[in-house]
């Protein structure tokens, strides 16, 4: 009898602890829930988002936090599956009582969570998903897009390509939404800007295709002036290796979104093909400003590697959250959203603002070409041309029309 009494008391004590602790948290800290893919190939990009975010949060907390509260975060691995991602977002909001959600690299997951946060009225910072529906037709008040999307990347590339002399284009890519969206983005805009361009052919391969040689020999035979290659993930490197082995890169120039990005060129070392055109929002070596250098130093010291595109979006997300609450003066969702609209912060790539009408971060886009550089043992982007956000982003009117 006595024994069971003691058990009951201990049991009740722990139950009580669990019931009270989320409340204690909610009072003492700002909680951010991060849902992202931390298993499989996507980790190449998601770890940078998380590390960039952690770096900024540690700095903010060391300075006393925001309005006297520390920023805390919890991560959940959605395993690149929308149903798991949505369940985790629900768990974070309903059980962990997070104030803010952020993530993910999976567009389908992001759209599912977006639908959920609209009902729950939780701000959601999108850090890597590239679907243009997120901020376009499915966009709403609680969504903040901290990176570019396929439509924007396509338009930015089209702006740069329209100034080049090429006329006969071949389009090739991964046969899934991302591939087609990038290809359509480039091609539809290019046709508008330079009506004389013509498409001589298309080839589409399955996602994860390992050997591009048969596709390339076929494209070579058709002799186009330029190729738009809409690959993503590991296909970026696979295509570049095949382009080098077949001599394609010496014969026909081609464009891949993020072709010049560190995750693609660094693994190949000096063996990456030169002369490949690409776009990216961030390089650790460009712009060559004190702000960027300081960020790179800080990131390298913490993680012993150079920051890549995801690091910038994670780093800035944390800062926007902190500064937003500071400006709002209280921990309140509606006040935070109001404060963030139109807010501009200094970043490693210069001042960045969140556009008020659609909550899109106004990032500059860099168009460059792969080149050897004696300073590095891998290829870097050369002849960088900066395309301003206002030129490649859809206008507020266009977004409004999409959202109807």
């Amino acid at each position, binding site marked *: 009898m006595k024994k069971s009494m003691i058990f009951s008391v201990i049991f009740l004590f722990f139950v009580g602890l669990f019931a009270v602790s989320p409340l204690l948290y909610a009072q003492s800290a700002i909680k951010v829930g991060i849902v992202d893919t931390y*298993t*499989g*190939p*996507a*980790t*190449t990009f*998601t*770890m940078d988002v998380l590390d960039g975010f952690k770096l900024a949060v540690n700095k903010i907390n060391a300075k006393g936090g925001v309005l006297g509260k520390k920023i805390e975060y919890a991560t959940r691995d959605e395993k690149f599956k929308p149903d798991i991602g949505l369940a985790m977002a629900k768990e974070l909001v309903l059980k962990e009582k997070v104030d803010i959600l952020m993530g993910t690299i999976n567009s389908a997951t992001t759209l599912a969570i977006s639908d959920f946060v609209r009902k729950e009225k939780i701000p959601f910072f999108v850090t890597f998903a590239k679907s243009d529906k997120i901020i376009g037709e499915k966009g709403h008040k609680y969504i903040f897009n901290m990176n570019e999307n396929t439509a924007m990347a396509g338009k930015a590339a089209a702006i740069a390509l329209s100034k080049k002399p090429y006329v006969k284009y071949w389009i*090739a890519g991964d*046969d899934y939404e991302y591939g087609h969206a990038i290809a359509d983005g480039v091609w539809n805009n290019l046709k508008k800007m330079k009506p004389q361009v013509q498409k001589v*052919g*298309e*080839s*589409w*391969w*399955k996602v*994860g*295709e*390992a*050997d591009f*040689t*048969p*596709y390339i*020999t*076929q*494209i*070579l*035979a058709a002799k186009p002036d330029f190729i738009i290659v809409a690959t993503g*993930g*590991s296909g*970026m*490197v*696979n295509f570049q*290796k*095949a382009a080098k*082995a*077949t*001599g*394609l890169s010496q014969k026909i120039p081609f464009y891949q979104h993020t072709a010049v990005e560190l*995750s*693609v060129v660094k*693994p*190949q*070392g000096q*063996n990456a093909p030169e002369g490949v055109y690409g776009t990216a929002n961030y390089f650790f070596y460009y712009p060559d400003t004190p702000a960027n250098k300081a960020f790179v130093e800080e990131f390298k010291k913490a993680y012993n590697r150079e920051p890549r595109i995801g690091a910038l979006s994670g780093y800035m997300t944390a800062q926007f959250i902190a500064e937003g609450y500071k400006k709002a003066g209280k921990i309140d969702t509606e006040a935070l959203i109001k404060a963030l609209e139109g807010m501009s912060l200094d970043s490693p790539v210069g001042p960045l603002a969140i556009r008020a009408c659609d909550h899109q971060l106004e990032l500059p886009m860099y168009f460059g070409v792969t080149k050897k550089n004696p300073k590095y043992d891998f290829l870097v982007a050369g002849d960088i041309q900066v395309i301003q956000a206002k030129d490649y982003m859809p206008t507020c009117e266009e977004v409004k029309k999409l959202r109807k």
Partner: protein
Amino acid sequence: MDSIYAIVSPGVLSQIFVGLSRTTILFIVASGLSLILGVLRIPNVAHGSLYMIGAFAAYTVTKVFGGGSTGFWMALIIAPLIVALVSLIAERGMFQFLYEREHLMLLLLTFAFSLVFGDLVKLVWGGEYKSVPVPHIFQGFVPLFGGLPFPRYNIFLLVAGPVVAILLWLLTNKTKIGKIARAAAVDREMVGAVGINVSWVFAIVFVIGCFLAGLGGVLVAPTVSVTLGMDHNLIMEAFLIVIMGGLGNIWGALLGALIFGITQSLGILVWPQFGIIFPYLAVVIVLLFRPTGLLKSTW
């Protein structure tokens, strides 16, 4: 040469040979899968993971030996052995206790292994893309077939494929272990009854099969980015090839790989937008007319 071009255009010829070189890797991996399927009756879904480990091991070995050509040749020897060691541990530690279970159980178990291996690779090598450089003498391309460029490395693959096939033939037909393995595939109990330790025969066959997966991983490494997820892309194709060729039949794997590789490269030539469907179409046609595969299945 001109007389050949009168019959087949250089483009088609080039495409056929590109398809053949792709066949090499498919064959090496699928033959290992088929060997295990035939003798041990395990549908080893983790076979793709061992291929992936082979590629990652190739990356490390290449790097240890200076990242150049020597590195690649060392990787070609060492990396498949690393994979063989991993598979030996898995077989002795786990699979040997499960041979009597039904296939569905084994399928689930090997699937679980593929997840475990995937996470292990992430722990050991991290999530970043890795790249193994093409050895110096195989860099670049040669103008072949009417001046169309043909990668030198693919020529190497064209040679490597038949070499592996011949070695495999010698192993299964001319060595004692090969003969025992073939006998065990047909009648496991009889082999045990004549006093042969079947358990160890199975272990050796399993390791050889996985060695082939690792070898495929090393050979593919210079042409692709070595990354998590490369196992899933391959295992599907490897299974289709094995099913098309006849379960457990190594020569069926060769035939299946040939059909798969060549229909794909020729399909791209005919209809580039839908090139991906041709090998799968070939699988469907084969299975419609020969539901048990092209060659005699050991099942």
